[in-house]
């Protein structure tokens, strides 16, 4: 049987990790905090992908590997698959999760749903902070995806788009090798 822990353990740990790096270590250097949070995700993704692919043949192309992330990998982590996969056939893939669990459980004021409009504000309002904290949380899953693909021999850059909350899209750009 697969060992399980309560979901609050993971939620609490992630919240505290993000807060530790953003509010204690790198208070005025969000880009440094972001890099560390992404690096932690990268390690996790790399190790998980190693474990989950141990008994399978190597993927023959990028699409195969991306599909593995969308189906098996995502299911292990979130008990659901990625809902929508798009590609431009030139190395960019968009993986959309219609209700991304790690955002769904974050308490965010509904007025911050439109993150793009927050950018107009110059002062660090509560909304602005909420949006920033949300984007900080997203560096972790972005790192996980990058780490997982890197373990499969696919170097890439990963970013997240939350303009359609609670949906979250991860944009994977594979580096030309």
């Amino acid at each position: 049987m697969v060992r399980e822990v309560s979901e609050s353990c993971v939620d609490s740990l992630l919240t505290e990790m993000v807060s530790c790096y953003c509010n204690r270590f790198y208070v005025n250097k969000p880009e440094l905090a972001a890099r560390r949070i992404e690096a932690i995700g990268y390690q996790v993704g790399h190790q998980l992908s190693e474990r989950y692919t141990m008994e399978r043949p190597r993927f023959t192309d990028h699409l195969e590997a991306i599909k593995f992330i969308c189906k098996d990998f995502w299911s292990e982590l979130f008990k659901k698959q990625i809902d929508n996969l798009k590609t431009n056939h030139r190395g960019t893939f968009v993986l959309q999760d219609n209700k991304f669990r790690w955002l769904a459980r974050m308490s965010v004021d509904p007025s911050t749903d439109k993150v793009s409009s927050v950018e107009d504000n110059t002062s660090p309002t509560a909304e602005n902070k909420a949006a920033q904290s949300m984007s900080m949380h997203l560096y972790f899953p972005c790192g996980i995806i990058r780490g997982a693909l890197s373990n499969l021999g696919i170097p890439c850059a990963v970013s997240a788009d939350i303009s359609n909350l609670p949906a979250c899209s991860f944009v994977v750009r594979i580096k030309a090798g």
Partner: protein
Amino acid sequence: MPPVAPRSGDAIFANVERVNAELFTLTYGAIVRQLLTDLEEVEEVNKQLDQMGYNIGIRLIDEFLAKSNVSRCNDFRETTDVIAKVGFKMFLGVTASVTNWDADGTCCSIVLEDNPLVDFVELPDNCQGLYYCNILSGVIRGALDMVSMKTEVTWLRDVLRGDDVFELQVKLLKHVPEEYPYKDDE
């Protein structure tokens, strides 16, 4: 009459949302590794892990109280028993035991044989002095702080340091009685 505290967290754990423990274990491991890189000093990493645990504990206590139906423990013995049997089970899916009570009932050990935090973990030689699971002691200290009990929580035994089990000593320093905004006779 207040509801009786459950004697085990099995039923609660069966009903909470659960996730693959590998994700939790590897995430914790990656955080520890990143902290070792960023902070360099093992002592400082111990301190930060404890602080992270404390911050988690002061929030987790609410969920614990809400889901466990524990309303009030009569004494420190009952409190530690509930932590070991209900708290550990409800969050980590494992059960701990309480032993080594001192004569006046203010100091005991919580013993953990099975600990999901250390699955797949082996400490390299340069990490001597690291209390890898220090987040756990922080969580207990933080949670108890929120129910008016000031405690000191220290590791006595650690499997990663060659012991057979994990043993956490919990010492009650001060029990701040709850103050009510009203008098009994009003």
